[in-house]
């Protein structure tokens, strides 16, 4: 019986196929059903395709103005939702005038009832002109379709083409309305396709080296990219283009000039790596930089490609000496703690082994809200017998899971965090992090520390009023041992 139907989901038995309990003898394709529609009336954690396109893929680019063609809501929600810091450094050595421009501004057409009736393309054209006037320094303007404009049939590509000619500046349309596809993953795909087809091959880098890579699917969440870039630099590898953390519009255009594509977030951006390989013959490798072991292994693999393995070894040795003792402290504290990883996608397979092997934790299971089969295969392969692999769990299932599996820590998003706390269990932000970065050597220490502080928060020993005082209040650490 490799599938499990939560008690609370008995009225919707279709959910059973989405909850797989790992059994080692199962055939490889025995996986939870995924990337299919959510059952209506669920409290799903899933978002929409627009979120996948703008929120995940393009929102990290530093020098682009984003126009959301929508009633005001989608524009408002597109603001300040991702921790994608950017610098003002441009590849040619110049400075973009505004730091964190991508975080600071969001633009929209604020469609009204009359626009819904008569169409919003005129308004969109004017909004593009306004944007170019307001922020003349942007390198490009990106347009986003939404449910409304999808339904009323506004032709964003036509507007983009027309206005690009008028302004002499790249204008790119993303047709990923909210209702497209079962999850935000549809938006990733569209984002990849558009950026590849419209941009890659259109620009040339200021300079190249024999050690150039594309770092794909690295969005610089809470500074992740900056750590990785330092590693590569020290090894002698040059990140020619990042897709898309702290990158600029033109960087996408010259991805075809790299020697290798390194794919970080395999769910959201293997697409473009594959397309680049197909069209330009540039090989790609899927990588994993979470935790010290994965980071070391994958740095070496990338370095080996360039014959720089020695340099990688040096870096790894140095870093391990730095973080080893601290990690050892946290390992002792975290050993045996039961964690459940509820990520958007790939973190559910990136983190299971490191938590188990490097921190001696017990990973009760993993889930994802938008992974596809390939991702679930990896999740499954990286878990022990009897562990859970769940597609798109809803809030009610999460409750049952926590109750039945005696979980010590949930790793999830803001939507889960405060809900899980109400169940008396700590929840760590794993989409946008608590005190990141979480990648690489230092990042894994940060993650371990954040897990440690979440679990050892003294509050968990004080949840209820006690009618009699404990003669001597133990300290949390003792307690938790």
């Amino acid at each position: 019986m490799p599938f499990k139907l939560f008690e609370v989901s008995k009225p919707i038995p279709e959910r059973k196929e989405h909850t797989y309990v790992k059994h080692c003898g199962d055939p490889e394709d025995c996986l939870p059903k995924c990337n299919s529609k959510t059952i209506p009336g669920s409290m799903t954690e899933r978002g929409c395709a627009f979120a996948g396109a703008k929120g995940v893929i393009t929102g990290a680019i530093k020098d682009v103005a984003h126009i959301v063609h929508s009633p005001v809501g989608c524009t408002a929600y597109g603001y300040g939702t991702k921790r994608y810091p950017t610098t003002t450094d441009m590849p040619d050595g110049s400075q973009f005038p505004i730091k964190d421009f991508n975080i600071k501004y969001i633009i929209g057409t604020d469609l009204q009832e009359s626009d819904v009736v008569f169409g919003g393309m005129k308004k969109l054209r004017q909004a593009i002109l306004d944007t170019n006037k307001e922020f003349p320094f942007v390198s490009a303007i990106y347009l986003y379709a939404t449910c409304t404009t999808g339904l009323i049939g506004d032709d964003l590509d036509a507007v983009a083409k027309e206005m690009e000619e008028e302004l002499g500046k790249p204008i790119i349309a993303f047709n990923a309305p909210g209702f497209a596809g079962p999850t935000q993953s549809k938006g990733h795909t569209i984002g990849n396709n558009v950026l590849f087809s419209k941009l890659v091959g259109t620009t040339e880098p200021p300079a190249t080296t024999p050690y150039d890579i594309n770092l794909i699917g690295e969005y610089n969440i809470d500074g992740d990219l900056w750590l990785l870039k330092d590693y590569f630099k020290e090894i002698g590898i040059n990140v020619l283009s990042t897709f898309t953390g702290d990158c600029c519009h033109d960087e996408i255009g010259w991805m075809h000039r790299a020697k290798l594509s390194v794919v970080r977030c395999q769910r959201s951006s293997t697409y473009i790596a594959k397309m680049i390989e197909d069209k330009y013959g540039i090989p790609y490798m899927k990588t994993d930089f979470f935790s010290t072991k994965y980071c070391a292994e994958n740095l070496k693999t990338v370095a080996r490609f360039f014959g720089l393995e020695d340099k990688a070894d040096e870096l790894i040795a140095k870093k391990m000496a730095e973080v080893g003792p601290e990690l050892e402290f946290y390992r002792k504290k975290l050993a045996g703690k039961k964690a459940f990883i509820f990520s958007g996608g790939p973190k559910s397979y990136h983190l299971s082994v490191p938590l188990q092997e490097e921190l001696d934790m017990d990973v009760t299971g993993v889930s994802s809200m938008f992974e596809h089969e390939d991702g679930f295969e990896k999740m499954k392969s990286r878990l022990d017998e009897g562990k859970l692999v769940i597609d798109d769990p809803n809030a009610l299932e999460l409750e049952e899971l926590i109750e039945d599996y005696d979980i010590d820590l949930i790793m999830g998003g803001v939507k889960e965090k405060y809900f899980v706390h109400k169940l008396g269990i700590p929840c760590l932000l794993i989409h946008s992090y608590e005190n990141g970065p979480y990648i690489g050597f230092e990042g894994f220490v940060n993650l371990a520390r954040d897990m440690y502080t979440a679990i050892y928060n003294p509050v968990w020993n004080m949840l209820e009023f006690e009618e009699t005082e404990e003669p001597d209040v133990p300290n949390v650490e003792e307690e938790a041992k």
Partner: protein
Amino acid sequence: MSMNLIEKDRVATINPLKTCQPLGAMWAVTGISRAVPLVHGSQGCSAFVRYCLSRHFREPSEIAVTSLHEDAAVFGGRKNLVEGIQNVAIRLKPDFIGVITTCSSEIIGDDVIGFIKTAKGELKEKIGEEAVEKIKIIPISTPSFVETHLKGYDNTIKALADYVAEPSQPNEKINIIPGMVNPGDIREIKHMLRLMDIESIVLADISDPFDAPLRPSTTEYKPYYPKGGTTVDEIVDSANSVGTISLTKYAGSGALSLEKKYNVPAELGPIPIGVRNTDQFLRNLKKLTGQDIPDSILDERGLLIDSMADVASRYLFDKTVAIYGDPEITSGIARFVGELGMEPKLVLTGSKSQEFVKDIEKVAKETGAEIDTMIDQDLRSMEVYLKDNPVDLMIGGSDARLMAKENDIPLVRVGYPVYDRVGYHRRPIVGYNGGIQLMDLITNTVLEKYYEPEHWKLQQ
């Protein structure tokens, strides 16, 4: 001495100061006990709102969605909604389901009222008539492309009046429509009502649901429902109250509906921010209930007055302020900073509201200030304005925090959203106590920014 209306000179909206109707509806439904907001739209429509509400309140925001996709765009959302209602009803066993439309379901033209009927019919076969009748399932029409989140809130309260309220026996209570204010504000209102010995029905009371204790021993789990919220019975009973006070003119449709249908007298606004507005609120309460205003409240008033005497002219006079946010809160704060002797130099709201303009005209008259006023505007307009017209202080939500920082203008956080600090949702700005809190906040901000450099001035 005058109000100077500054028009928006762009079509593009840059950093909006408003969002769409469904958010207001989800907010309001969360204020009902054991209620589930069911959004009839794409998953983004629930996911984004849950994210926004959770990060502001640092609380769960449990919202169900019908997950509309391409097929619904073509064939309509009937299947999704009918199924969705049943799944919510069966799995979550709520007392109330608010079916909230969105841009997509409105454009598709779904017959929400009809679908609810269908769903109920099918449900009866599954869980029995009695169980179904116990659940109020109410349509809330909130087209995203009309007005703002406040309208969605307003439409929800109106739906409560229209679909839930039922006349029976007079109940001597007062209905309060708080508007989109924080838990701390609603608690302060209830505190004042308690001092006046008035029982109330709050339509709807998000104070506990969005600021709930962490107490596993008494919490309702599987499904989790937060403590509190207005019960359906109370909403039913709201037709029998002695009156309705909507704290905001901008969300008074429910009050007017109760007045029209059930002769429950309505008073709309002003929000009790500052001295004079709170005085007016108390007068309205007295008028509707006949209750006298007790000394205990007037002593609280006296504490605010005392602070204003001690602090306002000394530290705050003539400091210029830019205030932005929802119209009622913004105009309320503008009036209050005027009472503090400060100069509301710019007021800004995302709503296209003539009421707001009138409110500000009144403030301009009272304070003698020239007030630049922006309606239907966005935060970018404020940023551009401030480059040429710097102010001493900004008052509003977190969305302008980077602008404040870049311009080195201290920001006093109020209203929604405040996500980059903690506890603000718990801190009232309404009533006399809220006045003290807000004034303290403003004053301490001024002291830190403008007095610290000459620290000896802080010795008194």
